């Protein structure tokens, strides 16, 4: 019954073809996103290479426990997202909606923790251009912290988009505008994006908070 509900759109000749095209399109898109964050990671690593000392002192300013809490939140949201996808494929509408909202809530919790971290950073004078002057004198520290803001900021924007997608998707599933399991591909695609945003954090967390910590 899944296939009967699947509407084939214009250039496609058959449902499978359309499905594969959507999947491939999503992966190619994720590859472009990976390249974009990759450029940022490259900049961060270069800063670590040219200013090991400053970057280390900057790392020590970041709270690895809050960052770790955030990692846990996102990993959990990845679990709920996976559950949503499986549920959607099985036509379990209610459970799908629940899991999507859970992911959105976990994502929102992440953003709250992040916001709190930013607030702490603000009180320390870490934020560029506003607040107190930068506290660490060692060269490279300020640079690294600025890189931290750009990368976590860009990640937060992505996560915010993910939250909107998840809530929107839950709504349309609830309204039966996206019939399940016929259009479960939509849940699947949103899930791909969500996992990807989680994966960016999987790398951001160690590169920003853990690497070279101590000393």
């Amino acid at each position, binding site marked *: 019954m899944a296939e009967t509900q699947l509407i084939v759109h214009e250039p496609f000749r058959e449902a499978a073809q359309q499905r594969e095209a959507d999947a491939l399109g999503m992966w190619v898109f994720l*590859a472009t996103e990976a390249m974009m964050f*990759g450029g940022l990671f490259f900049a961060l690593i270069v800063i670590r290479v*040219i200013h090991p000392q400053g970057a280390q002192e900057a790392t020590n300013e970041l709270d690895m426990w809050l960052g770790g809490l955030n990692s846990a939140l996102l990993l959990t949201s990845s679990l709920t997202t996976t559950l949503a996808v*499986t549920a959607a494929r*099985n036509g379990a509408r209610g459970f799908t909606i629940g899991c999507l909202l859970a992911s959105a809530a976990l994502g929102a919790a992440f953003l709250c923790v992040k916001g709190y971290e930013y607030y702490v950073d603000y009180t320390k004078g870490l934020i560029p251009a506003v607040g107190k002057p930068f506290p660490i004198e060692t060269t490279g520290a300020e640079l690294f912290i600025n890189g931290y803001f750009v990368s976590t900021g860009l990640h937060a924007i992505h996560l915010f988009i993910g939250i909107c997608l998840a809530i929107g998707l839950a709504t349309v599933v609830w309204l039966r505008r996206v019939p399940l399991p016929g259009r479960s591909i939509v849940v699947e695609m949103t899930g791909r994006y969500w996992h990807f945003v989680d*994966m960016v954090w999987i790398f951001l967390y*160690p590169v920003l908070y853990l*690497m070279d910590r101590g000393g």
Partner: protein
Amino acid sequence: MAKVVRTGDVIVFVVLMGLLALNMAQARWLDLGSSGRIVTIGLAVGQAAVLLWYFLELRSAAVLTRLAAAAGFFWLALLFGLGLNDWLTR
């Protein structure tokens, strides 16, 4: 519900959390010197691989999809490899 919540997914989740815990512990309590960087990144790569393979379903994906995913990493390796070479030999 049993059909919806698969134990496999939960195990994967536990592994991911375990790797996270390991990475945090390592960074906090072990002083691995210069190899610490490699360990940190290695653990993150492990997490990402698990995520890709299971949650992102590369396990059951078409070859083409796997290639698309691999392409991103391969090209990033080019950027890092050739790019860092400059700073490391300056």
